[in-house]
């Protein structure tokens, strides 16, 4: 029996040498090849960390991605990178612009997936940004309606999922952090688009939803055609479990439980994390629960990220022992 499988949500922090390389590359001081060499070096590092900790399903860590939307926008001719807009405080990002009909032109994530899978016997997840989030976090100068843009984006991502699956990816995670932006108007559209992405692709699909009003789309989110839904539990000290008390999680789905907070420098204690897992297990059987951080760890330092993963793994072992699972 597999139970309490462990994985990560997607991104890891970039080591200093990679940050430096990215900045030099942007300024035209470093050739593309050199940058890619360091991206691979950093990826190998994170595979080593995850294997060393005994994690079950690995992620490649997104060393080649700056931002989960811009990464894809840069690779698509139908999108371009726009000017800076403010996100909050003194934080700005380059918001992409859809400028033409969205079309898949070639694999965007397969090479890095294949490289990473070549480093480990453990399965490595394919990582995509969902169609609704891709469109919602971009300007659109081409489509007359959001619906048309989202559905075309879904077709692009479907082709990418097909390629990942063909390359051998057994697990594909599709992140939709923007899915609850306009739930009354757009939730059906987001589900429809998600269905297009996964249609007839022989892989196990997971999704990760974070930020904001998760309450507003539960239990609606159970309509998403995925095996696993991952939510950030630790950030609100497991308050989200109340949702599962009010409306049980679908019996054919698995729950990804975020057990360490990615927005906090402080590293949780093993006991605190184990307790979060125990609370979850009052509502969900262990074989349908996956243990993960709340979100991508890229905003932490390398040391903090590793420490949080280590605590997560130790706490999982503690609970497994209590349950008599090896």
């Amino acid at each position: 029996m597999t139970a309490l499988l462990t994985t990560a949500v997607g991104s890891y922090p970039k080591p200093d040498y990679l940050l430096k390389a990215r900045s030099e590359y942007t300024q035209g001081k470093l050739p593309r090849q050199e940058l890619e060499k360091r991206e691979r070096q950093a990826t190998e590092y994170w595979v080593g960390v995850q294997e060393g900790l005994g994690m079950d399903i690995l992620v490649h860590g997104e060393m080649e991605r700056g931002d989960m939307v811009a990464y894809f926008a840069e690779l698509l001719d139908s999108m371009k990178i726009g000017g800076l807009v403010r996100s909050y405080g003194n934080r700005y990002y380059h918001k992409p612009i859809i400028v033409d009909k969205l079309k898949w032109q070639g694999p965007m994530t397969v090479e890095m997936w294949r490289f990473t899978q070549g480093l480990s016997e453990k399965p490595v997840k394919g990582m995509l940004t969902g169609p609704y989030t891709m469109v919602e976090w971009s300007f659109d100068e081409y489509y007359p309606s959001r619906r048309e843009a989202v559905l075309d984006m879904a077709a692009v991502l479907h082709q990418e999922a097909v390629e990942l699956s063909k390359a051998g990816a057994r697990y594909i995670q599709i992140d939709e952090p923007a899915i609850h932006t306009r739930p009354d108007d757009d939730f059906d559209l987001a589900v429809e688009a998600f269905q297009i992405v996964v249609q007839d692709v022989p892989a196990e699909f997971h999704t990760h939803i974070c930020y904001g009003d998760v309450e507003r789309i539960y239990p609606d989110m159970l309509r998403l055609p995925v095996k696993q839904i991952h939510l950030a539990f630790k950030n609100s000290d497991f308050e989200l479990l109340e949702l599962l008390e009010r409306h049980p999680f679908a019996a054919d789905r698995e729950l990804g439980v975020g057990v360490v907070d990615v927005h906090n420098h402080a590293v949780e204690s093993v006991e605190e994390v184990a307790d979060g897992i125990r609370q979850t297990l009052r509502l969900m059987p262990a074989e349908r629960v996956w243990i993960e951080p709340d979100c991508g760890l890229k905003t932490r330092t390398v040391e903090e990220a590793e420490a949080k993963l280590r605590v997560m793994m130790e706490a999982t072992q503690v609970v497994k022992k209590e349950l008599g699972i090896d």
Partner: protein
Amino acid sequence: MAVEVEPRLQPVEVNAGSTILTTVVGNYPKIPNRPRPARLRAAIARFDRGEISREELRQVEDEVTIEVIGEQVEAGIDIVTDGQIRWEDDQTYIVGRLEGFRIDGLQRYLDTNTYFRQPEVVDAIRWETPILVDDYRLAVANSPKPVKAIITGPYTLAALAQDKHYGSRRLLTLAIAEALNGEVLALQAAGASIIQINEPVILLRKGDFPLLAEALGRMLQGATVQTAIYTWFGSVEGIYPQLLELPVDTIGIDFVSKPENFTILTSEPFPKQLGFGIIDGRNTKMESAEYIAERVLTLKEQMPGQIPQLYLNPSCGLEYLPREVAQAKLARLVEGARLANKQLGLQP
């Protein structure tokens, strides 16, 4: 949405009223893009690291404020704002300077991909000293065009705050309104000729309209200057025509996010000034001058002899756009207004 545009070459025979003017809804992008330097971003980062003083940061804020007033004027806007350059977000800048609030963690702002710090009400709310008066004075001294003062309204501030003191939305809203009355009177004493109150959140909770009306009445007690209320990101269905009863001179409505607002508006007589939010403040796609003029002419035809003053403006603040696109959109808005004035036979 795409709207078919037929060119109209001759002045249209409608009761056109006074010249159509252009304005903005509030904020303006704080930093330009390369090759222009992002001075404010760099200054805030240096201030946060303790490398420059509060006064040095203030100096940069002043300079950037003057710069963005200049950009609005250059685009041809008739009534400008200070761009809200100093504002951390629409809530924090006001409530962070009132007594009784604490500023808490990040929250998504309405249906955008931007975040604000959620205010927490922890004590009785009081207005101690003017918040916007110095900003207003600096703007007026550096603008050849009239400047309007912007205040986030009491209903929106209350609705987006977490109340740990009053225990009732009504009491909290009215307490904020009371406090902001001090600001209104201080701005008025400083010579402000137009005071605009932004109340986007009422469109999400229309059942609270009577509370909004009561709060605005209190906030504007003693106000003798021109006043406006602006809303965005929603339909006015359900609170229209009641909006017309508010004690303000101008009503601002977003016709981009909800095009049906056009039909709702034209269903009733409109005796007030209208802020016609007609270009998209959230998308980089450029509207044409012809499209803007066409919307104006259609409005004028459907509402003959009404809307004593029409202001054209973006659908919301401009901070969702890169700086250069924001300015280009304003220039286009002005072009559209000129075309409409010409077609209506009005003097620009």
